[in-house]
């Protein structure tokens, strides 16, 4: 099994599955800097002789790249019935699970309550020059976020925003985890990261305020996790694992330990947390975002100086 969800959150769930099923799970986890694209590209590189039976992705966009290359072995799990439409593929190519939201992490010691940013556009506001951070959009969930913004605003507006972001001295961190560190330590006033990064910072007692951006306009980007069945060598074990990862106990655990937002109605949100249905979310087509993501890559590389 290959995963692009943090090892710290998923390893306990895999151990539970092993205890219940007696099936041993051998996992390859992604590193933060190459989150999602690391193991994703390993799956592509191994296409000649597939090694992985399941890809548990941190988002449903990158799996579209596997679908395009014919590396997915579609399977409609009985558990998928409880997942709302829009968060799963009808043919079973991928099925969504507990979701992360893209949030603004704000350092309360540096930003007054009246000055709280409200939109991702505030990252490029000259008022915050040199005081903001995002992860490198070539890797990780930020890739998907900028692609979603391009779909919402148009390519030109997105490019203008990113150019302004750079001119505004926004720090380009190597990962969302580093954005969290920068905000938590007060090196920047606020930054864009994922809800699990926010939960981790709050758990560590960092002086963080969490802002769901753009809730009055286009909405906050939500990224469900995605369980993707692959054409690996263990078809039967793959189905059992997919069923378990989409089950209530697995989603509940991901919600509890990683502060994800539950998609299933029968899973409770984390204490003080929200359901996906409680927030105004961006309306996105994950398949279209995948196309946009590929289209934007050359420009993003140039923007990032790579």
């Amino acid at each position, binding site marked *: 099994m290959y995963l692009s969800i943090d090892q710290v959150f998923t390893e306990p769930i895999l151990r539970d599955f092993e205890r219940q099923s007696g099936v041993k799970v051998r996992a390859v*986890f992604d*590193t933060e800097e190459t989150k999602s694209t*690391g193991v994703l590209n390993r799956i592509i590189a191994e296409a000649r002789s597939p*090694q992985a039976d399941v890809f548990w992705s941190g988002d449903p966009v990158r799996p579209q790249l596997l679908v395009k290359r014919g590396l997915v072995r579609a399977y409609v799990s009985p558990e998928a019935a409880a997942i709302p439409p829009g968060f799963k593929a009808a043919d079973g190519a991928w099925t969504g699970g507990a979701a992360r939201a893209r949030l603004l992490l704000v350092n309360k010691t540096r930003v007054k309550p009246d000055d709280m940013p409200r939109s991702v556009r505030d990252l490029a506001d000259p008022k915050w020059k040199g005081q903001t951070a995002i992860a490198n959009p070539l890797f990780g969930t930020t890739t998907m976020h900028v692609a979603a913004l391009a779909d919402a605003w148009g390519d030109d507006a997105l490019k203008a925003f990113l150019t302004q972001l750079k001119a505004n001295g926004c720090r380009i961190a190597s990962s969302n985890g580093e954005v969290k560190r920068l905000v938590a330590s007060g090196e920047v006033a606020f930054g864009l990261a994922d809800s699990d990064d926010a939960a981790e910072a709050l758990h*560590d007692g960092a002086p963080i305020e969490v802002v769901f951006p753009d809730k009055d306009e286009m909405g906050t980007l939500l990224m469900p996790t995605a369980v993707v069945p692959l054409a690996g060598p263990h078809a039967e074990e793959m189905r059992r694992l997919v069923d378990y990862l989409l089950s209530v106990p697995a989603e509940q655990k991901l919600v509890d330990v990683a502060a994800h937002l539950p998609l299933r109605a029968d899973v409770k949100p984390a204490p003080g947390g929200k359901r996906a249905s409680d927030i105004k979310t961006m309306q996105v087509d994950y398949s279209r975002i995948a196309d946009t993501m590929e289209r934007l890559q050359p420009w993003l*590389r140039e923007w990032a100086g790579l």
Partner: protein
Amino acid sequence: MAPGMGWAVALRRREEALLLVAAGVVLAALAFLPLVFLGGELAKGEALRQAVRALSAPRTWGLFLSSVGIASAVTILSLGIGLPLGVLLGRSDVPLRRVALWLHAFPLFVPPFLLALGWFHLLGGGGLARSELGIRVLFSAPGAILVLALALTPIVTSLVAVGLQAVDPSLEEAALLVAGPRRAAARILLPLVRPAIALAALVVFSLAFSELGVPMFLRVAVYPGMVFSRLGGVDYAPGEAFALALPLFVVAVGLLAFERRAAGRRSFAVLGLRSREVPDLRLGRWRPAATVFAAAAALLPFAPISALALRAAGGHGFVELPQWIGSSAWNSLFDALVAGTFVLALAVVIGHAAARRRRGGAGLDALAVLAFVMPASVLGVGLIATWNRPSLQAVYGTSAIIALAFAARYGAVGLRTAAVSFSQGSEHYEEAAAIGGARFLRRLGRILVPIHARGLAAAWLLAVVFCLRDLETAVLLYPAGQEPLTVRIFTLEANGPEAVVAALSCVQVAMIAIVLALGSAVLFRRKR
């Protein structure tokens, strides 16, 4: 003579050449074939056109020159610190110089990104010595240069220090009759260890130029990052990555040419592995200042390691360690021991050929150095293309692939060390045995290996330690569920508890320290 006997005799006569061919084929299969497969990706679709476009873009060469600049600065800084320190710790009367050399050299065997993480815990937000200036410097090109130079200076210091052990003391004594210690060191000793300095510069530049983890962590754009972006980004383009790696090969060839030119015919005769009593260079009134310099150089690299230990202890990281470490430490050790042994087998044959200037020896040495300089991500993807086949699952699906990848990447480390050892031994023993009718395998088993046992053990130890500290090769290839400790640290570094990550880093450091201590103990015992 029976017809079959003729072949047997011919084979025996060509034993050395055949063994070298076999070792060369293995090395080529590990280090060269993956590049051939990767190069084949250029023929697919638009890959060639995109590669040409990437290579003709001004920003490609801007980043390339910037990386050359960073690696040059690291090399100059390392030489600036390492040369005087090598003289002080290698030949002077500075107190406790052997202990200081060990302490100073130790961080070399720690993955550089752990040192960067340690510096972050020291200077970054919440760090013990946090300051705005410190943070600004750390997360910048000068910061990356400083972190890398501190990590790599021990290469210069160690090679110069042990190289000085091989210098004929009578030359130094003659110089001291007419000049002071400073002049004797600058005019006599350092020129005599020119091959060691050239090799050190080659290794430091290569490692600094191909380093990805530290610049990525410190948000500094470097050329290997551009290569990696073709393999780690959304639009996976291995052919383009291969094309972008081509300038790195040119740099590698240039470095080798520089080293050969600088070292001349003594290219491999750099390390004083033989025991020899030499008098200390007396520093006189400079001794106190030199002692402070040596102490600072020995202790400074421990600042980031200490910061990691304090972070781990402060957050109960050591208490939680058992539930996070899994079998990763054992995986690291197993992979490194197997790979180190494999490297040694190749190094005995190829290192001997390189040291004795046999035909093909220099070419295979160059191939090993090329694999050492190549970005790990390029080598890794090439190895996947080569070895991931249904019929090769016994290799690709197991930790054997890690051992092969390590052997490809770190073969140069063992090979160079073995070559150094062979080049310092007299060829006369071999010639006498050959005249007496001993075949190459017999000469190898009865003469070469016993005489050079210490040097070969050092080659094995160095290869093992380099494999233990590896992250970038293993992270691309490790079999599911069998990640080494460095990979586990890196995957947990994202959202894992900081104290646990720091504790795991301490385990990594301790594991390398124990292996080095045990290895050194064995080497020392053999010496007696």
